[in-house]
């Protein structure tokens, strides 16, 4: 919950050292907790650094799925997660993305808990049971 609070307030995923400092815990404890969350697919950690890459539905670095709520913005890792951000926050939002094929820009509008003035289809290429074999590709 602390991670989500930080992302929602700042638009950025917190570093491990920052979480440890905020919660007055050792870095090793935080890393162990993040690895447990990663094992349960609630998070994806960067290989090597162990920093948070994905705290579902938020992604740490820019993607093709930008979600804007007023003056704040976040990145989703895919269209499902991008739609999930306004759902999670229970806020109006514009999801700025593009066609996976022709790159034409499109904006999906979420207003009062509904998807409005939005067109397109969603393609899942990877069957469900294989989603976490390569979550970045999925």
């Amino acid at each position, binding site marked *: 919950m602390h991670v989500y609070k930080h992302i929602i307030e700042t638009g950025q995923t917190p570093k491990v050292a920052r979480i440890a400092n905020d919660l007055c815990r050792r870095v090793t404890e935080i890393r162990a907790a993040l690895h447990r969350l990663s094992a349960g697919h*609630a998070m994806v950690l960067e290989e090597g650094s162990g920093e948070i890459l994905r705290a579902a*539905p938020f992604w740490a670095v820019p993607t*093709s799925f930008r979600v804007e709520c007023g003056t704040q913005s976040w990145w989703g890792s895919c269209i499902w997660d991008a739609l999930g951000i306004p759902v999670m926050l229970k806020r109006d939002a514009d999801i700025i*993305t593009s*066609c996976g*094929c022709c790159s034409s820009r499109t904006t999906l509008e979420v207003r009062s808990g509904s998807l409005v003035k939005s067109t397109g*289809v969603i*393609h899942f290429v990877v069957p*469900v049971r294989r989603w976490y074999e390569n979550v970045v590709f999925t």
Partner: protein
Amino acid sequence: MLLFRSEEHVNRWCRQWNQPLGAVLTLEQGWGLAQGWYGDRLDLGWRPKSETEIEAAFAELGLRGDFWRLR
């Protein structure tokens, strides 16, 4: 999980990148998935869905068949 202008653009992308056609969802189905997965994520009592709950949530949105099975 990408957004496309139309199914024609999905098919074109699959040919271009030599990928199989997976599952094509309407935006309404995608919105339903987002609500099912993230609607309660900030609740203090939130817990991950079980495999049975996930498959049931897919079925409620009309997402059935081998592609949507976890086991």
